[in-house]
């Protein structure tokens, strides 16, 4: 049986750990709140741009824009969104595993695909395996503003435009609720399913539909990427919050069981002492 002092020190260290996890849970809860709010602020913009894109793209038949056309696939792009830090349960490994499996089942050689990694975990994972990471960004803030990722979004869309890859898939974590997030695969480019629930309006184009698509489509694709990032951030904080709550609960359980064995050991020690005293007194008689 472990000595009294050993158990005591285990209890103290577990208590300290649980204080830290508790604090991390509260920090994540605050960030999660703000993350959900910024995802909400983004909704009006997304809805509007979707509506306009749908009306322009559908309303003007016969217009061929490179971003709308499916071309023969020589190289596929994968955009993966993870966090920079761990301790968020299975949040990162789920996304990374899903991407990794998809790539392995679809491609035989390294030249057939290119990876764009947002977040340190994804970058490190794919670089370590010698896979082709062409663009990465780490240190995205917890409440990213559009300006933070404008460059990477514009570069990604630009790479599709200049033929670096011929289709682009996006892997991110969709936020369902505080306790449930799911990994989502989305084909981003070429833009194929632009649909909207609202009634399509017909517009005059100034100067022409082609020139409007030229401006609109990249902006639309970039906002899809930003939307996915906001979604992932909300999921990340929710996942971390849940993970930290579980850790705190586990720590409490551990402390309980340690306290029990501490008390047992203490009683055993007292009993032993009494037996010794009684034995000593009996020997004197």
């Amino acid at each position, binding site marked *: 049986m472990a000595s009294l002092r050993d158990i005591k020190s285990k209890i103290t260290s577990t208590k300290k750990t649980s204080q830290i996890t508790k604090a991390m849970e509260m920090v994540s809860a605050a960030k999660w709140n703000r993350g959900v709010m*910024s995802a909400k602020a983004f909704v009006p913009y997304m809805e509007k741009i979707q509506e306009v894109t749908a009306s322009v793209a559908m309303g003007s038949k016969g217009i061929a824009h490179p971003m709308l056309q499916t071309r023969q696939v020589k190289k596929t792009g994968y955009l993966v969104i993870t966090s920079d830090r761990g301790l968020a349960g299975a949040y990162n490994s789920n996304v990374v595993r899903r991407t990794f499996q998809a790539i392995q089942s679809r491609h035989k050689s390294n030249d057939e695909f290119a990876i764009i990694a947002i977040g340190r975990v994804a970058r490190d994972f794919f670089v370590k395996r010698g896979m082709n990471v062409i663009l990465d960004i780490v240190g995205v803030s917890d409440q990213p503003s559009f300006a933070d990722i404008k460059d990477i979004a514009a570069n990604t869309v630009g790479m599709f435009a200049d033929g670096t890859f011929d289709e682009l898939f996006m892997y991110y974590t969709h936020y369902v609720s505080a306790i449930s997030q799911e990994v989502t695969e989305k084909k981003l480019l070429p833009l194929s399913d632009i649909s909207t629930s609202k009634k399509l309006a017909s*517009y005059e184009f100034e100067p022409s539909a082609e020139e*409007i698509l030229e401006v609109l489509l990249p902006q639309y694709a970039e906002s899809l990427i930003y939307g996915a990032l906001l979604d992932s951030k909300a999921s990340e904080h929710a996942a971390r919050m849940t993970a930290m709550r579980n850790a705190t609960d586990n720590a409490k359980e551990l402390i309980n069981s340690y306290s029990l064995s501490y008390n047992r050991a203490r009683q055993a020690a007292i009993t032993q002492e009494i037996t010794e005293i009684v034995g000593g007194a009996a020997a004197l008689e």
Partner: protein
Amino acid sequence: MKTIKVSVVTPDGPVYESDVEMVSTKAQSGELGILPGHISMVAPLQIGVVRLKKNGQTDLVAVSGGLLEVRPDQVTILAQAAELASEIDIDRALRAKERAEQRLNVQQAEHIDFKRAELALQRAINRLAVTEKRI
């Protein structure tokens, strides 16, 4: 007087929402003025200012490009960044201007960075101009 609903939305949230008498701005094909009852229209915008006239006053919003969508009863401006004149961070715009100018002086050779710096300079100058209401 008849009014038209205007909203300026960016990925970071709505920037401006109000009923105004007239919207005027610079589209890529030239200056545009929009009154209530305008025909439905879409036009890409230049980096510039949106002037919103209301009760004899004019509100200014700086936009970095984007798109203008007009319906008879509503105007929506979709921009990747937009600020009301009173909310522009002058120091930041000044710093951005300096940085862009430096880059333009150094990197004459590289085409893409040059273009980016040029756009950044335009945006900074636009923001500064809007704060000084010189437009």
